[in-house]
């Protein structure tokens, strides 16, 4: 039970060549991957990669190391995996003892507990896994920046698409898992934000094996929705949603967790130079890059970018720089990525995709904002109750 697997993802590059900076700076980074209980799902089609999230960090380290070679900056990464049900705090303390930068890919409760450790004071933590909007609001922490988009950013992106398409009557099927419930809550908030109607909701209660009888059950299940414009499926564990497509009573688009999805990253993103990032990742990991990988890659690249620009390895200096107007990260999404100064969330476009192509990239044209169109996604300053970031 208390087995802890520690992997040295990469070692510090020994020799530094073509150094333009006089001083040599070591930048040790730690990554904590906290396994969560994963309920069994109906389909066996999509096994979870063993190195999910970790491979993204590995690529970020490679990218940083190449730049560091020219600058005299030596990056290193230590990844620790915490098994399901195990207390993550000892592993977090151990990681923080060695590195001032810690990526946490795990649930919200673990994240805030780690951020509140005395060992985390003055360190810089990155949330690369928890999508809970509350972490960007009332439970935010001053020492935590978020490179993973909040659920609210993802559902806002999708609802912008509904508005653009004039899909005004929306219905939703919600699964039983807490993640499904959280997604449904975020979707309801987004629909209200953009003034769309949630005409009806139904809970998914089937316990049959849908691979065999979806064709019989789903038409009946969706018949009493009547007419609507789009069906949202809240199925974040990807259990039943895939069996809804093409089986609904009405011929209407399926979206949400399946069909048209709003994600931080997908293999179909190839514009804006993304093809290069995709092929670098494929070469490294032997698989396609997933949203979890992107969030971890972005965190390490944000550290790298800040170290490059400031010539410092001090977490307080880097945090101040990342939250300043001078920071921008080239994230292969078509525009520079920056951090929100009120809650530490990385602003980023959200791709709307189906498995074979990019459909659109939110914020969509016409959704305006006085500061940045990217702030039409997720918790805008007046919506966030976060006060830890007030200077």
């Amino acid at each position: 039970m208390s087995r802890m697997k520690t992997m040295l993802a990469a070692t510090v590059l020994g020799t530094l060549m073509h150094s333009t900076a006089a001083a040599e700076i070591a930048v040790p980074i730690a990554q904590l991957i906290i396994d969560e209980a994963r309920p069994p799902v109906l389909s066996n089609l999509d096994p979870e990669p063993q190195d999910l999230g970790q491979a993204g960090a590995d690529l970020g380290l490679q990218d940083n190391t190449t730049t560091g070679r020219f600058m005299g900056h030596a990056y290193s990464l230590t990844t620790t995996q915490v098994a399901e049900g195990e207390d993550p705090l000892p592993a977090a303390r151990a990681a923080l003892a060695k590195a001032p930068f810690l990526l946490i890919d795990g649930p919200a409760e673990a994240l805030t507990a780690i951020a509140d450790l005395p060992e985390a004071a003055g360190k810089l933590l990155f949330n690369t896994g928890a999508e809970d909007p509350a972490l960007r609001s009332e439970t935010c922490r001053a020492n935590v920046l978020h490179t993973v988009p909040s659920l609210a950013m993802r559902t806002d992106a999708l609802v912008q698409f509904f508005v653009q398409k004039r899909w005004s009557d929306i219905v939703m099927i919600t699964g039983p898992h807490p993640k499904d419930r959280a997604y449904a809550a975020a979707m309801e908030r987004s629909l209200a934000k953009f003034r769309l109607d949630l005409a009806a909701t139904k809970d998914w209660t089937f316990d049959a094996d849908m691979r065999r009888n979806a064709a019989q059950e789903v038409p009946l299940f969706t018949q009493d929705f009547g007419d609507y414009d789009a069906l949202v499926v809240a199925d974040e564990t990807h259990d039943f949603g895939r069996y809804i497509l093409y089986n609904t009573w009405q011929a209407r688009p399926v979206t949400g967790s399946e069909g048209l999805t709003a994600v931080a990253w997908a293999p179909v993103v190839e514009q804006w130079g993304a093809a290069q990032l995709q092929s670098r990742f494929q070469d490294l990991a032997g698989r396609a890059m997933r949203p979890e990988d992107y969030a971890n890659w972005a965190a390490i690249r944000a550290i790298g970018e800040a170290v490059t620009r400031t010539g410092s390895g001090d977490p307080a200096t880097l945090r101040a720089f990342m939250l300043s107007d001078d920071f921008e990260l080239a994230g292969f999404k078509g525009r520079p990525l920056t951090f929100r100064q009120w809650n530490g969330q990385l602003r980023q476009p959200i791709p709307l995709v189906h498995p074979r192509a990019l459909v659109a990239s939110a914020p969509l044209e016409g959704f305006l904002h006085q500061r940045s169109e990217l702030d039409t996604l997720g918790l805008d300053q007046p919506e966030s109750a976060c006060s830890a970031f007030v200077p």
Partner: protein
Amino acid sequence: MRFAAALATTLLATPALADEIWVTNEKDDTLSVIDIETMEVIRTIETGERPRGITFSKDHSVVYICASDSDTVQVMDPDTGKILHDLPSGEDPEQFVLHPDDRHLYIANEDDAITTVVDTETRKVVAQIDVGIEPEGMAVSPDGKIAITTSETTNMAHWIDTETQQLFANTLVDSRPRHAEFVKDGTELWVSSEIGGTITVFDVATQAEKAKIDFDVANVHPDRVQPVGFEFTNDDTHAFVALGPSNHVAVVNAETYAVEDYILVGRRVWHMAFNADRSRLFTTNGVSGDVTVIDVAARKPLKTIKVGRFPWGAAFRPTN
């Protein structure tokens, strides 16, 4: 389509009458040849996969094409459109520059973080130089002594001594540097940064930053103002700078570094080429799949010419 291709072949037999602009179509695996007088596409020529960088030899007897996904640089006879041979280029060649010796190509290998130097006579790789991640912009000084590679993810201009083929300096620029040019007899180096939204001007003698040029297009969010390719008018007095998804070309005074004008062109404007007397400028517009012709003196768009899918590079070919 087949009929058009056949027609193009018959046209090859007749001598060309006017100068031409050659455009690579990244997603069509073709070149579009534009007649400068009529401002129409007169030939469409097949290339290797994903053609991007394009440049002619000094006497314009051959044209070099980066066929990125074919992992080669193709050497084409511009009269016949036939591929004469391929050059070893390293993997995924994106952009290159021909050394003033008319013999060595400096090639950015985007997927490999390498700059490859190829001798076009012996058709051999002379050197490979480790640079930053996603090398793209390439330039050689007029005296041939310095080659530059910019790396998009490392955000640097890498300075290569062409004598030793070694790096002698690495200078930071803003995010995603895309294009580099030596100007004013090689005393200045200009580097555009797509995501940073700037052009950095370096003093070549000291490699020190001398100026930074910012852009501000009315009613376009600064995030969408993304400088990419740029070219200079006669005597390097003004630069015309493609601003990507802002769909504008900026006119920059090269003495004061002030932006004087913005010209509306097609969508996601990328690279460009002048005609012989630099009175007309042809810009490739990737997303709209066309080329905008700009009247340089008037600073006005004249015409839009439909080309292939995702036009990328452009090169001038005199025919007289």
